[in-house]
């Protein structure tokens, strides 16, 4: 059964009966959901519930994990991303990902952002404007415009994370996956990233995994609650937080476990 969200104008990601095993262990059980376009969807749940695993199915990062087996169907923009004719490189161009810990490459700020466009064959003369635009969109242009040649690792943790967002934006994806993007950051940096995410949904479909329920409540339009590999409940954030349909959702949100 498909949970939650009715009357959605446009569906960006459609998941049908997704099952995933790591070796013998089943990590995701019968997940079905429809993630609306140009919205922020938060995935919450206790550690080990499968929310990050699920996120990594959406850009096929689980392909890197040995003994990982997937059944079911995921369509992004109505295209089956596990279909036989799918180019993973192309998929990851359209579905960007920002990781838990900031992971800038050990090169200059400019080269970090230009990395994606370069490997995808961007024209050299366009690079300057692509990089500037990506840094502006990620709200880090003011801090970096005068030192684009300095190493990315000289930035603070919060700046590094925004640089990683800029790096993802430079590839011009349509969907961006965030895997606990603020768990390694201080409150001020976290607030800036949250503002940024809410701003980005104008142009992108955003799926964010978070440990922080206040964060999910603050920034998301839709929320999915995962527990032990199952999607327990999925719907509009306000409804999930104010009027959850399932007992376990309510228990988790009110802090009775997790």
């Amino acid at each position, binding site marked *: 059964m498909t949970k939650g969200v009715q009357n959605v104008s446009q569906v960006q990601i459609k998941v049908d009966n997704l099952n995933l095993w790591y070796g013998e262990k089943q990590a995701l059980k019968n997940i079905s959901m429809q993630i609306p376009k140009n919205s922020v969807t938060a995935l919450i749940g206790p550690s080990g519930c499968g929310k990050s695993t699920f996120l990594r199915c959406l850009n096929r*990062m689980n392909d890197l994990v040995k003994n990982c087996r997937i059944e079911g169907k995921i369509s992004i923009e109505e295209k089956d991303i596990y279909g036989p004719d799918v180019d993973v490189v192309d998929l990851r161009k359209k579905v960007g990902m920002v990781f838990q810990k900031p992971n800038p490459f050990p090169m200059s700020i400019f080269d970090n952002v230009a990395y994606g466009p370069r490997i995808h064959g961007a024209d050299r003369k366009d690079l300057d404007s692509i990089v500037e635009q990506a840094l502006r969109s990620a709200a880090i242009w003011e801090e970096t415009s005068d030192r684009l040649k300095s190493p990315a*690792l000289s930035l603070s943790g919060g700046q*590094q994370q925004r640089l990683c967002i800029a790096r*993802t934006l430079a*590839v011009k994806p349509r969907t961006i996956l965030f895997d606990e993007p603020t768990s390694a950051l201080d409150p001020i940096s976290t607030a800036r990233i949250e503002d940024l995410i809410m701003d980005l949904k104008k142009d992108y479909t955003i799926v964010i995994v978070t440990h922080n329920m206040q964060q999910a409540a603050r920034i998301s339009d839709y929320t999915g609650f995962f527990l032990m590999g199952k999607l327990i409940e999925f719907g509009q954030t306000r409804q999930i937080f104010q009027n959850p349909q399932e007992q376990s959702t309510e228990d988790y949100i009110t802090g009775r476990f997790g």
Partner: protein
Amino acid sequence: MFSKNSKEKGIESVLFFISTLTVLILFLICIFLFRDSLLLFKETSLLDFLTGKFWYPTSVNKQFGLLPLLLGSLLVTAGSILFSVPLGIASAIYISELAHPKVADFLKPFIEILAGIPSVVFGFFGLVVLVPFMQKTLNLPTGQTALTGSIMLGIMALPTIITISEDAISSVPSTLRQGSLALGATQWQTIYKVIIPASLSGISAAVMLGIGRAIGETMTLMMVTGNAAIIPSFPGGFFGPVRTMTATIALEMGEVPQGSAHFHALFAVGSVLFIITFIINLIADSIKKKYRFKVG
């Protein structure tokens, strides 16, 4: 309690003494090496030794010119590096990035065994297999050439280069790998644009240590390079015999009258060798310290 404490102190001072012994031995070696070398300069000037073009230690008109030996060593080493660095780095990339873990676990012990083969065995193999092969395929008067030595040395330096490069490559955090792949990079783009630049200092340290290994090698070279003390030309010198500094010491030390100028000249050659390897190790060490990866 008091007696136990003094026992701890006792063990500590014994261990301290043993570990300083190593340093002491190194110092003594240096002192003897340099003292005996300096005695040469009573007979020949330092400049004549360093720039002399002829090594005629036993003729009536004795000449102790380092150049043929130094250039012989450098030529053979340079050749071995040209050969072993691409091969070593390629193997390291394969083992740490591309090979199935089971294949990597299968390959690694063999590389370590390669490092454990005595150099005389390498020399024997070179003499019996590679020397005739070089002579025939390149149509040379003799197969005992600098190139033969370079190839053998290259094989011998491979384990050092592979092991240390592989270590450096594996120490690149996997978050960088994932970051690159998530941007739509292929595995190969990830390797040569992110992984290799990130581990470059470790790889350079591996290369330096490989050079150190090559320049100090004696037995194998003595057996396959022909030992003619003539200044090699470049690059034609690869196809003729050369004599390295190490081979010179090994060949002549047994025959030389103790305390003669020739005797001191060999010590001076040894000092030069020592200084070169010392500098190389120093460089490798400082590079290695830098590459400890800082994350987050």
